[in-house]
């Protein structure tokens, strides 16, 4: 069963939500949503969105603003050099689907929402890339590559692989309009 995007509701986390029963099968991520997400939000470090299907919490994701600080690179072995450059980033800090709903497009639909936030930020304050530190397993990394065309970047550690998607790499004719829409002007 594939759950269409329009059948899901996305709500911003606040104290009124009971998230104690959520389990995606990964204790670290479960611990984040239960113990950390509200504190990060109160500190305005990240915002967590809850994803509901038929009044059941089926997933969540947390996003934060970030920065990629790419240091200068000297020319070497015939390769050109680069000056230092920083890019504003939307960091997908956590994302998980309820165990029973994995494989039903909930993750794909949450990723769509994440990119929508990224494209909106592009218009309002500037945001060039979406980055995620993905769990280092084949299924997770393939998910991000398949649905977001993410690329490996930066150092990885034993448990995570950093992935990146440039929001400017959009096929011609599909670029976002830099003008505010009529809806946004209202």
């Amino acid at each position: 069963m594939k759950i269409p995007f329009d059948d899901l509701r996305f709500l911003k986390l606040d104290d009124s939500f009971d998230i104690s029963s959520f389990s995606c099968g990964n204790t670290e991520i479960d611990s984040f949503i239960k113990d950390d997400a509200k504190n990060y939000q109160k500190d305005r470090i990240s915002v967590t969105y809850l994803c509901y299907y038929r009044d059941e919490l089926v997933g969540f994701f947390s996003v934060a603003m970030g920065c990629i600080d790419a240091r200068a690179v000297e020319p070497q072995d015939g390769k050109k050099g680069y000056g230092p450059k920083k890019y504003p980033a939307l960091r997908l800090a956590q994302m998980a689907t309820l165990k029973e709903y994995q494989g039903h497009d909930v993750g794909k639909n949450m990723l769509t929402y994440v990119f929508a936030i990224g494209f909106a930020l592009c218009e309002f304050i500037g945001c060039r890339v979406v980055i995620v530190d993905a769990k280092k397993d084949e299924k997770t990394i393939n998910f991000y590559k398949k649905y977001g065309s993410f690329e490996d970047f930066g150092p990885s550690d034993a448990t995570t692989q950093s992935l990146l998607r440039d929001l400017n790499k959009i096929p011609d004719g599909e670029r976002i309009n830099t003008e505010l829409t009529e809806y946004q002007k209202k």
Partner: protein
Amino acid sequence: MAKPIELETVLVGEHARAFHEYMESNVIHETPESRQVMREARELSKRFKFL
């Protein structure tokens, strides 16, 4: 306990070179699925209001 959220990523050496090359490149690697996700995301983004 979950790993703390790191807001900044600093890239040096070959990681920085690979990143600079990726950002400079005009090549777009899009799967059919990611193309659809991007298209839907762009449409959805037009409905967001920040002000």
